[in-house]
């Protein structure tokens, strides 16, 4: 299904971009071209200027940030800067990273209409077009909903619909699936594939979750952390020859490649070429059983003996604006358990986690360590329970890293403070940033600090809302490892996530929500066989299970 690239219509030559004249350039001397009807994947560690590149292509930078741009970008042979404002933008659809701040109207319908108005689309055909693009991303039932009441994933879908409404010649997607549930992420790629059958347009995608995109990508571009173009070529060469470099930069690899590297090191592959698909792993393995066994070894051991319960939840409901968001959930959670909360976009995952922490009032009863949540003294409660928000910046209240840690320690004891904060800094690997402002840290450091400040007082229960969202591979691993190590064995982690591999690897139980109702609460091993539940909650199989299924299917055929 690889579309045939034709001649280039976007040309970038020697592009260098800096935000300020005394700052290092974000992009250095970049040269590449985009062909018509081509699908381009841009890879790079966080902070390598991927988003900046997208804005430059759209003629938004340098004008809107007073940045300094050297070099030349041309669209159909004409310099971008020579176009009227808005002229090029109408040919390019852009989906930005932050789903919260790319809308200017109140409802989903009005937002799409706003785009159509801008491109002078004939009024009489607007209704039809709005319904069409909203349907493409499964948002038609939410046409009249107020945008600020949509969930993060739904907002992202709406942003994609807006970009598609323009029928752009180039579609730039900046992490379009970061907030989407696994099935929606997969469907987005399928939708684009289908659209490309009838329309000719190019796609430039910046993405962490590579697996869905692999079979439509024609070419990869890699930026390194200096903002230089490091590779420009076909994906199989990109991953086969540069997998090591990519991994060391913290760039996510497709899961097949990632598994392939490990297998190659363990000498389980027949030849040294890395597998691009699951079938290639199976064909390439010396012994498929050993392969699966090998890949399963680092899966976290499940708890065996039942332990005392931490949370007892009985008939919890929560409604807002006469809409039931959480409906009659009852469950119990034991010490030592790692619980994952999964479900489709807008199924009430964040709301439920907030109910658990007592951040929003709910109907029904929640008992924490045997006492009703309302009876807990606030200060006492937060000494045993930590809650990490999606945006780490929300949690910082002081002006330096050390003050952040001391602030959390303050409430407890005074004497051993100095010693303790040193210990913490060591585990955070942030000894150099002691006096830095929390806002100035890198993405990964911010995340680690936000988790750490929730745990320094020996909190036993940690609730995390999508802690790995938008993070590069190294950071994600760090966060989870840090949390798992820092929470005592008698404690518990509750984590909202769309990452099925993470669930498969760490979770003792998965709580699956569908429209605010609990439809599954058991170990993940049991979930993977329940195709009906997976489909209802927009979930997909983790890599390892998919591999097993392929193997089983193959054996069955033989």
């Amino acid at each position, binding site marked *: 299904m690889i579309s045939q690239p034709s001649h280039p219509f976007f040309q970038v030559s020697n592009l260098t971009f800096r935000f300020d004249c005394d700052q290092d350039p974000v992009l250095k001397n970049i040269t590449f071209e985009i062909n018509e009807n081509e699908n381009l994947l841009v890879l790079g560690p966080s902070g390598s200027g991927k988003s900046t590149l997208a804005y430059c292509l759209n003629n938004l930078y340098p004008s809107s940030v007073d940045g300094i741009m050297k070099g030349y970008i041309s669209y159909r042979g004409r310099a971008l800067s020579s176009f009227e404002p808005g002229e090029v933008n109408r040919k390019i659809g852009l989906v*930005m990273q932050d789903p*919260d*701040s*790319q*809308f200017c109207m109140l409802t989903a319908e009005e937002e799409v209409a706003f785009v*159509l*108005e801008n491109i*002078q689309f004939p009024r009489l055909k607007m209704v039809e077009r709005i319904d069409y693009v909203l349907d493409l991303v499964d948002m038609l039932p939410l046409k009249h909903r107020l945008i600020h009441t949509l969930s993060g994933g739904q907002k992202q879908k709406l942003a994609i619909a807006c970009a598609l409404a323009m029928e752009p010649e180039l579609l730039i997607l900046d992490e379009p699936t970061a907030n989407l549930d696994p099935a929606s992420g997969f469907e987005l790629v399928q939708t684009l594939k289908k659209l490309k059958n009838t329309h000719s347009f190019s796609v430039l995608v910046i993405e962490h979750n590579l697996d869905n995109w692999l079979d439509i990508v024609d070419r990869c571009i890699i930026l390194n952390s200096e903002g230089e173009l490091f590779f420009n070529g076909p994906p199989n060469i990109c991953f086969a020859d540069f997998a090591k470099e990519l991994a060391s930069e913290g760039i996510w690899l497709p899961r097949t490649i990632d598994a392939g590297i490990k297998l190659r090191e363990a000498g389980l592959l027949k030849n040294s070429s890395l597998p691009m698909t699951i079938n290639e792993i199976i064909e390439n393995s010396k012994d498929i059983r050993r392969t699966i066994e090998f890949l399963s070894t680092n899966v976290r051991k499940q708890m065996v003996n039942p332990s005392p319960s931490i949370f007892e939840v009985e008939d919890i409901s929560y409604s807002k604006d006469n809409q039931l968001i959480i409906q009659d959930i009852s469950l119990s959670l034991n010490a030592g358990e790692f619980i994952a909360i999964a479900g489709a976009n807008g199924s009430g995952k964040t709301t439920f986690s907030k109910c658990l922490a007592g951040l929003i009032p709910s109907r029904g009863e929640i008992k924490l360590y045997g006492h009703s949540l309302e009876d807990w003294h606030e200060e006492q409660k937060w000494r045993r329970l930590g809650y990490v928000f999606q945006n780490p910046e*929300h949690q910082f209240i002081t002006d330096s890293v050390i003050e952040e840690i001391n602030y959390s320690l303050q409430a407890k004891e005074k004497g051993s403070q100095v010693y303790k904060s040193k210990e913490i800094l060591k585990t955070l690997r942030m000894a150099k940033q002691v006096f830095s402002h929390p806002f100035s840290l890198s993405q990964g450091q911010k995340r680690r600090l936000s988790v750490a400040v929730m745990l320094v007082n020996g909190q036993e229960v940690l609730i995390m809302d999508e802690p790995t969202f938008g993070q590069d591979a190294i950071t994600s691993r760090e966060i989870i490892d840090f949390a798992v190590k820092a929470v005592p064995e008698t404690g518990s982690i509750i984590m909202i996530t769309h990452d099925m591999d993470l669930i498969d690897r760490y979770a003792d139980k998965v709580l699956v929500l569908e429209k605010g109702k609990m439809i599954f609460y058991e170990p993940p091993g049991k979930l993977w066989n329940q195709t009906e539940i997976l489909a209802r909650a927009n979930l997909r199989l983790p890599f390892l299970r998919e591999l097993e299924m392929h193997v089983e299917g193959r054996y069955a055929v033989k």
Partner: protein
Amino acid sequence: MLLNKMNPSIKALSILVSILLLSIFFDPVTPLLSFVLTIAITFILGKISFKNWILLFSPFLFMAIVYVWSSLMFPRVDPGDSIIWEWWFITITAEGFQRSISLGLRVLSFASLSLLFALTTNPINFLLSLMQQCRLSPKIAYSIMAGYQFLPLIKDEFEIIRSAHRIRGAGRTETFLDKIKQIKKYAIPLLASGIRKAERTAIAMESKGFTGDRNREFYKEISVSKRDWLLLCLLIFIVLVSAFTSHKLGYLTLYKGEL
């Protein structure tokens, strides 16, 4: 003929003209009559909840009472005024009484007209109408709209920051100084994210091909029909009828800069 479906710009014009007309007269009967008639029109022709109306009207009522009260207590006494009641330092004259009642009723009639507009008009439609009928620049109109949809976002963000602080044990405030410090702690992240959001939204609007060009297609066309002009006539008619009745009863006086 539903008020909620009228053209917002013409509706605004009608209200403006009526208020200007009403302000020519200064007697108790004209505003009283037009007040009653405006309320009648609001509830006959408009689809609004009585609760909302009362809720928004009560501050005006309070204001009117305060006006009447204060001008009764501290009146201007001209020679030749007929004194109704006198006690200690309070002197109530017939003229003063009439003036204060007129003033109070004037406040109420202005309020009822404004509420007629505010409660039956969708702000987005008003902006669209201003662009389509009054040639308001789309740049300004869409900036206001973007700002308008920011309000609930800021509220959500505030809630998140507040609970994040609560979790960290920063929610306790005992002294006044603590409270001020806390406002600073909320304000900085809120402002920082507000500025960042505004910047991103501006970029997003531009990326969607928005240029602020006046010549644009509108998805929702806000039309002007005969009924809209009928409303203008109706509201002017109300004021004139009130003034005429007042004249027949012998009350009508023009506003000559009293008070």
